[in-house]
């Protein structure tokens, strides 16, 4: 399989075509099966977290270590001299790109990863989250987990629950799954937090079935993947939030008519939208999903930094 990801920036899931997604998934499975501790030996990766995101940072850093590369960087933009001295992001990236082989960037502003790519002098940029915009490696690990649990990425019924308006994970995952055939989407959210029109329009243009539902029970018997997200209290007024809590909190009783193959995913952190009792059901897969982040990130790092694979 040709590696068209070599030296490519990983900014948005929309930049990856179907073949490239397949390549990452295949590589993720290979690395999960067979560790390759010397694959990126002698490479140095910068981990530039301009805002704190402990889980994503540790996942990336673990992936780097497992491939035998070295890592430098910082974990919070507030406490670095670059921020305090007022240096622009463009200059910071320009300098760091002369030190390393790749840069992982997390930044609170949307579009900052693409901006960074303009100033990295050809050094690949990995977007580890830019504001409410993109987090492509989260989508890759979601896809990897779905394929691992369902053995396919097409002909699936996927329910997405919670904050569908601001939740970038559900936007990107819908865009990625829309590249595969015969998937159907079930959107469950408070009225104030529905899926944005541009996602609905994209599905409409591709003639992909989607529908809004009021609660999880309505569709639990029809779905293969239940993708839960957190409804943030501050996004709703108190009445709406109380209403949302009663309808969108997943309990074991909600799962009584679930298909055997159903898997519950969540980008984490989970607050109270999934009852802890659900953790002990065979459907709960969110912690294994988080663990898969290591393999998906190993895969994308190695594909971008090494031309020849398999």
């Amino acid at each position: 399989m040709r590696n068209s990801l070599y030296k490519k920036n990983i900014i948005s899931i929309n930049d990856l075509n179907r073949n490239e997604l397949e390549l990452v998934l295949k590589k993720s499975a290979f690395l999960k099966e067979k560790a390759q501790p010397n694959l990126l030996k002698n490479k140095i990766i910068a981990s530039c977290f301009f805002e704190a995101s402990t889980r994503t940072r540790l996942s990336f850093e673990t992936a780097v270590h497992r491939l035998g590369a070295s890592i430098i960087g910082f974990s919070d933009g507030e406490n670095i001299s670059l921020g305090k001295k007022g240096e622009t992001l463009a200059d910071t990236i320009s300098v760091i790109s002369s030190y390393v082989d790749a840069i992982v960037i997390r930044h609170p502003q949307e579009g900052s990863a693409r901006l960074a790519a303009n100033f990295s002098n050809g050094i690949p940029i990995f977007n580890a989250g830019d504001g409410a915009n993109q987090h492509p490696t989260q989508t890759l690990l979601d896809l990897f987990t779905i394929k691992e649990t369902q053995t396919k990425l097409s002909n699936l019924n996927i329910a997405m629950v919670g904050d569908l308006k601001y939740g970038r994970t559900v936007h990107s995952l819908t865009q990625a799954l829309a590249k595969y055939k015969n998937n159907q989407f079930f959107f469950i959210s408070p009225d104030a937090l529905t899926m944005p029109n541009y996602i609905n329009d994209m599905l409409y243009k591709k003639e992909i079935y989607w529908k809004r539902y009021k609660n999880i029970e309505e569709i639990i018997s029809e779905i293969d993947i239940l993708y839960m997200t957190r409804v943030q209290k501050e996004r709703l007024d108190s009445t709406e939030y109380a209403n949302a809590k009663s309808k969108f909190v997943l309990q074991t009783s909600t799962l009584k008519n679930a298909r055997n193959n159903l898997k519950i995913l969540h980008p984490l952190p989970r607050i109270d939208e999934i009852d802890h009792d659900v953790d002990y059901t065979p459907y709960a897969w969110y912690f294994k999903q988080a663990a898969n982040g290591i393999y998906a990130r190993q895969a994308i790092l190695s594909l971008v930094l090494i031309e020849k694979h398999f």
Partner: protein
Amino acid sequence: MQINKLQVEAIKSGSVIDHIPAHIGFKLLSLFRFTETEKRITIGLNLPSQKLGKKDIIKIENTFLSDDQINQLAVYAPCATVNYIEEYNLVGKTFPSLPKKIDRILICPNSNCASHNHFITSSFIFTKDINNEINLKCQYCEKEFAKNIVL
């Protein structure tokens, strides 16, 4: 009887942007930074037009707009024509067509977009929604906006 009298003084050489919708002429001057040049510019506002009723016109001496600049005019002035003048004679005429993308001119309405705070220029691509309405998608924050929100 038609009176063949020029509403705005003729130029010897340069570009004439004609058939700009009334009240858009000033906007084009600032957005396209035509005023940042030392070249002589003459403008006419609210001139009579058979095509538009009223129109604005901009004449820029010794400047020939690029195809890219001309196409970007189409966002604001879809009916505009750009005439090239040499030795007071019309030597070329082009019609803007909507470009695939528009750089530098627009400002992203998303206040948290990285394009606001750094030394980069904005960049939007044109998309169409299901009702065939034109939207603009920011290349940086990837948000899509209805045309009237961005312009």
